[in-house]
C-alpha cells in the first residue's frame, strides 16, 4: 500500500505544482496578498508530497519489494542495506525522483527562509520553481515512472550494477543534484525579477546565498565524483574531460562567474543585465547537463541509466525553458537601468575579468562537448574530442585568471590602486618564486612549467592569506588589535579567502600529479618485486575471498621504503554473483598527501599477473583543495548579511539613513 500511496502523492504533487505555477503569478500582478501567500504554502506542501513518494520508493527498496518494477530491475535481496538505499537513485527513474525531491526541497527552503524577500518576488520565484517542478513531474509520471508495478512479483531482483555498489553512489549524486538543481533558484529569481521588472542591488544580495549554496554543493559533488571515478574505475585518472564530467563542470564554471558578478551587482548595481543573463545561463547548462547525461547522445565512460527515447522529452523541457527565459530576457533587458561606474583597475574590473575568463572557458568546454554531436549531424563523421583539446583550450585561459585571483579581493571598489596592491602582494610573489626554485632544485630536471604551476598554487594560497592579513590591519595596527579585527571580520571574507586558498591547493595537486606521477605496467609472479616512486612493492600472491554478494581474487603487495616494510596494499578482481559481472578494485595506499595506486590485470599464461602501479605524488591535494573551497562556501553562507532584508524598520535606522544622505 505504501507504494501506491507514494505514487498517489507524486500525482498530487503535480496538481499542487500546477496550482503553484499559476495562482501566485496572478496574485503578484493583481497585488493580491492571499494569492501570493499561496506560493510558500504550496511549495512546502509539494515538498512533503514528493518526500512521501521518495520514502515510499525507498521503503520498497529496503524491503526488496520486487512487485515494483524499478526495484526488481535494480536491486537484489542480498545487497547490503546501504546499497539498497543508495540504489534508489542508482537508476534513471529513481534518480529523476531524487532530482525533483531536491527541486521542491529548494522551493521549500525559499518558502521557509524567504522571510526577508518581498512577497511579489517570492511568489513569482516560487511559481517559476513550480513550472520546472511540474515539467519534470510530467516527465517522470509519463515516461520514467518509478512506481510501475509487476504482477506477479518476481522472487529475486536483477541487482544493481556492481560499479554503483559503492559509498560513492550514496554521496555523489545527491550532492551533485543539490548543486545542479540549486541553480534553479537563481534561475527562478531571475525570471521572477524580469516578470516583476524590479532588478536592483537588493535582488543580487537575495540571490547570492542560493548561488553560494548550490555552488558549494556542486563543488563538493564534482570532487566526490572525481574521486569516485578515480578509485572505482581503476584507471588511475581523476578527470577525463568526459561529456558527463563536462556536463557538471559547465554549470560550475558559469555558477562561479555568477557568484562573482552578483557581488558586483550587490555592491555597485553594475552588471545587472549580465548577472541576470548568467543566472539563466547557469541553470540552462544544468538542464543541458541533465539532458546530455540522460539521453546518452554522447559516448561517456560514466553514464548509466541512459535512454535516448526519454532524452527527447528532456530536450523539449530544455528548449521551452531556455527559449522562454531568453525571450523574456530579450524583452525586458532594455528596461534595466545602468548601474554604478567603475574604473578598469578596481574590484569591479577584477570581477569582470574573472567573468570574462570563466564564461569564455565555459564556452570552450561547451564547444568541445557538443562539437562531436554537431559534426555528426552535419557531416556524418564520428569524432571524439579528448583531453588534448581541453588541455590546449581550457588550460591557457585558466592561467591569467589564476594569476589575477589574489589581486581581486585586495583592490578597492570603484577605483583601485594596482601598485599599492602589488606591494601588498610582494611577500606572496616572493614565496611563490622561492617555491618554484625549490621545486626545480629538489626535483632535478623538473620541467620549468611544473615548477611555475606549483608556484602559481602557492601564489593563490599566499595571496588569500595576505588578503585576510590586510583586512585585519596587518602592519598598521598592533597584534592585539589585529586579532580583534581578525575575529570581527565578516564571514564572507573568510569564505572568499578559503575558497581561493582551496583553489591554490587543488592547483598544486593537479600540477604535481600531471608532472611527477609515474606509471608502470608489468607482469609479476609471487615474490616478485617492482619499484614505484621511492617505494618497493613485493607481490605476495593471489588468494580468494568472499564478500556478501561477490567473490574475489585478492592480490596483496608488501610496500617498503629503504628495505623497511611499512604497509601492505590490496587490489582485487571481483565477480558479482547476481550479474556475474567482473570488476577491478584498485588498491590505494595513502602516504602523506601522496598515493600509491595498484590495479590488477589478467593472469598471463605463464602464471604471472599483470599489474599496473602508479605513484601519484600530492594527488590528494586535488580533493583536499575542493573540500577547502566547499568549506569556504559554507562559511560564507553563515554570513549574517545574507539574511538581511526583513523589514523591522526602526527610527534609528531611518535616522542613520538621513545622516548618510
Amino acid at each position, binding site marked *: *500500500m*505504501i507504494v*501506491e*500511496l507514494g*505514487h*498517489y502523492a507524486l*500525482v*498530487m504533487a*503535480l*496538481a*499542487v505544482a*500546477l*496550482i503553484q505555477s499559476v495562482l501566485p503569478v*496572478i496574485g503578484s500582478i*493583481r*497585488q*493580491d*496578498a*492571499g*494569492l*501570493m*501567500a*499561496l506560493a510558500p504554502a*504550496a511549495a512546502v506542501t509539494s515538498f512533503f508530497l514528493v518526500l512521501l513518494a521518495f520514502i515510499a520508493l525507498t521503503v*520498497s527498496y529496503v*524491503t*526488496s*519489494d520486487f512487485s515494483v518494477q524499478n526495484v526488481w530491475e535494480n536491486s537484489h*535481496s*542480498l545487497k547490503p542495506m546501504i546499497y539498497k538505499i543508495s540504489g534508489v537513485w542508482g537508476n534513471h527513474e529513481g534518480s529523476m525522483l531524487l532530482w525533483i525531491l531536491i527541486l521542491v526541497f529548494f522551493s521549500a527552503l525559499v518558502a521557509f527562509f524567504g522571510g*526577508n524577500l*518581498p*512577497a*511579489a*518576488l517570492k511568489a513569482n520565484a516560487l511559481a517559476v520553481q513550480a513550472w520546472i517542478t511540474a515539467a519534470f513531474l510530467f516527465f517522470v*509520471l509519463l515516461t520514467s515512472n518509478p512506481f510501475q*508495478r509487476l504482477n506477479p*512479483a518476481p*522472487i529475486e531482483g536483477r541487482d544493481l550494477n556492481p560499479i554503483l555498489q559503492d559509498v560513492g553512489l550514496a554521496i555523489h549524486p545527491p550532492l551533485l543534484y543539490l548543486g545542479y538543481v540549486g541553480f534553479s533558484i537563481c534561475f527562478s529569481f531571475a525570471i521572477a525579477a524580469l516578470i516583476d521588472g524590479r532588478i536592483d*542591488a*537588493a535582488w543580487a544580495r*537575495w540571490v547570492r546565498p542560493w548561488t553560494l549554496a548550490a555552488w558549494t554543493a556542486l563543488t563538493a559533488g564534482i570532487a566526490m565524483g572525481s574521486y569516485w571515478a578515480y578509485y572505482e574505475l581503476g584507471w588511475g585518472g581523476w578527470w577525463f574531460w568526459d561529456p558527463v564530467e563536462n556536463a557538471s563542470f559547465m554549470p560550475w564554471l558559469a555558477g562561479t562567474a555568477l557568484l562573482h558578478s552578483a557581488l558586483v551587482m550587490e*555592491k*555597485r548595481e553594475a552588471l545587472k543585465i549580465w548577472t541576470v543573463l548568467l543566472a539563466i545561463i547557469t541553470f540552462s547548462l544544468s538542464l543541458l547537463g541533465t539532458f546530455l547525461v540522460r539521453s546518452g547522445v554522447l559516448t561517456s565512460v560514466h553514464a548509466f541509466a541512459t535512454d535516448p527515447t526519454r532524452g527527447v522529452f528532456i530536450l523539449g523541457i530544455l528548449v521551452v525553458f531556455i527559449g522562454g527565459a531568453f525571450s523574456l530576457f530579450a524583452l525586458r533587458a532594455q528596461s534595466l537601468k545602468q548601474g*554604478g561606474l567603475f574604473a578598469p583597475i578596481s574590484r569591479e574590473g577584477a570581477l569582470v575579468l574573472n567573468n570574462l575568463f570563466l564564461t569564455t572557458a565555459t564556452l570552450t568546454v561547451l564547444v568541445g562537448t557538443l562539437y562531436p554531436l554537431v559534426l555528426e549531424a552535419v557531416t556524418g563523421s564520428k569524432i571524439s574530442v579528448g583531453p588534448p583539446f581541453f588541455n590546449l583550450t581550457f588550460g591557457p585561459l585558466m592561467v591569467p585568471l589564476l594569476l589575477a585571483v589574489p589581486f581581486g579581493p585586495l583592490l578597492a*571598489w570603484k577605483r583601485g590602486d594596482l601598485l599599492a596592491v602589488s606591494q601588498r602582494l610582494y611577500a606572496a610573489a616572493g614565496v611563490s618564486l622561492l617555491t618554484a626554485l625549490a621545486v626545480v632544485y629538489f626535483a632535478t630536471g623538473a620541467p620549468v612549467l611544473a615548477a611555475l604551476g606549483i608556484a602559481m598554487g602557492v601564489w593563490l594560497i599566499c595571496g588569500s592569506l595576505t588578503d585576510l592579513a590586510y583586512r585585519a*590591519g596587518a602592519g*598598521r*595596527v598592533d597584534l592585539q588589535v589585529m586579532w580583534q579585527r581578525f575575529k570581527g571580520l565578516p564571514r564572507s571574507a573568510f569564505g572568499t579567502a578559503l575558497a581561493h586558498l582551496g583553489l591554490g591547493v587543488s592547483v598544486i595537486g593537479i600540477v604535481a600529479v600531471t608532472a611527477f606521477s609515474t606509471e608502470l605496467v608489468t607482469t609479476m609472479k609471487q615474490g616478485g618485486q617492482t619499484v614505484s616512486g621511492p617505494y618497493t612493492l613485493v607481490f605476495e600472491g593471489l588468494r580468494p575471498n*568472499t564478500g*556478501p554478494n561477490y*567473490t574475489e581474487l585478492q592480490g596483496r603487495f608488501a610496500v617498503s621504503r629503504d628495505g623497511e616494510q611499512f604497509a601492505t596494499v590490496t587490489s582485487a578482481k571481483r565477480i558479482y554473483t547476481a550479474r556475474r559481472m567482473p570488476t577491478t578494485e584498485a588498491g590505494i595506499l595513502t602516504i602523506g598527501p601522496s598515493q600509491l595506486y595498484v590495479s590488477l590485470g589478467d593472469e598471463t599464461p605463464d602464471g604471472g599477473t599483470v599489474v599496473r602501479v602508479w605513484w601519484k605524488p600530492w594527488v590528494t591535494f586535488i580533493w583536499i583543495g575542493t573540500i577547502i573551497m566547499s568549506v569556504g562556501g559554507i562559511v560564507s553562507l553563515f554570513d549574517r548579511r545574507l539574511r*538581511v*532584508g*526583513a*523589514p523591522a*524598520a526602526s527610527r534609528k535606522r531611518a535616522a*542613520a*539613513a538621513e545622516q*548618510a544622505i
Partner: protein
Amino acid sequence: MMFWVLAAVLTVAATISLLVPLARTVSRQDNATEHDAEVYYDQLREIDRDIEAGLIAGEEAEYARAEVGRRLLKATNANAKSRPGSSLSSAARYVVIVFLPVMAVIGYLAIGKPGMPAQPLAARIQAPANDETDIRTLIAQAESHLASNPGDGWGWDVLAPIYLNLGRAGDAETAYRNAIRLLGSSASRQAGLGRALFAESGGIVTAEAQAAFQAAEDLEPGNPLSSFFLALGLAQEGNYAGAKAAFEKLAANSPPDAPWMPQVQAHLKGINANLAAAGEAAPGPDEEDVAAAMEMSPEDRMAMIGGMVDGLDARLRDNPDDLDGWLRLVRSYMVLGEPEKAGDALDRALLNFEDGSAGRLALTKAAEQFGLTPQRVE
C-alpha cells in the same frame, strides 16, 4: 479500501494547507520597498565598519555612502503596497478545492494500481507455503538464509542440485563453486559443477565442464556420471574412437540394468554410425569452414550453415539411429529460425526410437526445451 482512506486523508491535508494562506486575513501588508531599504541600511552599516577598520579612506567612503543613500532614497520613494485577500482569494479557494482532488484522483487512476498491496520479500517468504508447497518460496527462504550466512557450505551444497533440477544453471554453478570452496572438492560436487556448466553452455561439454568432470573422475575413478560426460565430451569433439572406448568402458563397469545404460547404448549406436560414415564425410564443420564462415557476409554465412544442416539431414536419412545427429538437427533448425522443419525433424527422429527408450526420452526432453510438440505421437 484502507488505501483510499489514507489517500483521502492525504488529499484533505494538502487541500487545507493550500487553503490556509488564502483564508488568512493578512495582518501586515507587505511592502516590497521595505525589504530593499533594509538591505541598503545594512550596506551603510558595512561601510561604517570598513571605515573603522581603515579599509577605505574618507573621500571614498563618502562617495560610497552617498551612492547607497541614493539607492535607499529611490527605494523608499517608490511605494507599492499589496492588497489584503480579496475576491480573488475566494475564487482561488474554489480552484484549489475542485482542481486539486479531481486532478490527483483522475491522474492517479490513469496510471496507478490502487488495489495492489506492497509485497516485501520478507513477508512473502514468511507467509506459509500454500498447498502446492511452492518450491520457489522454499528456495527464496534458503537464499535469504544464505544471504546472512554466506559461509554455510552445507546450505550451498543442498541448494545446488535443486537449482540444477530447476534449470537455473548459472545459480547452480555459483552454488557448486561456493560449496566446493567452503567444503572442499568432492566427486559429486565436481560432477554437479560440470553438469551445471554443461547446461549453461546449452548441452556442450566445454573445456571448463570437462575440467570439472575430470576432477570428479580423479577423486572417484569410475564414477559413472563423470565417465559418461567425459565420454560425451570426446564424442562432441569428434574423437569418436576415444568416445567409443570410453562409453564401452563405462558400459562394461556398470550393471546391465543401471539407469544410464540406455543412454550409453544410444550414444554408442550413434558413434558407431558416425565412425562408419567418417570415411566419406566429416560429421561437423572443420576449422577451415568456421574460419571461412567468420569472413562471410551474414547472408552467405546463413547459406553455408543452411547447407551444412541440409547435409546433416540427408545423412540422417541414411543413418536414422544417430541420436546425437537428430538432436543436433533439431537444434540447428531452431537456431536457424525454422520451427516447422525442427518439428518435422523431431517427428522423423521419434520414428526411430521405441517408446520408453533413452533416445525417445532425450528427444522429448529436447522438444520440451524448444517448446515443440511432436505431431505424430502414437
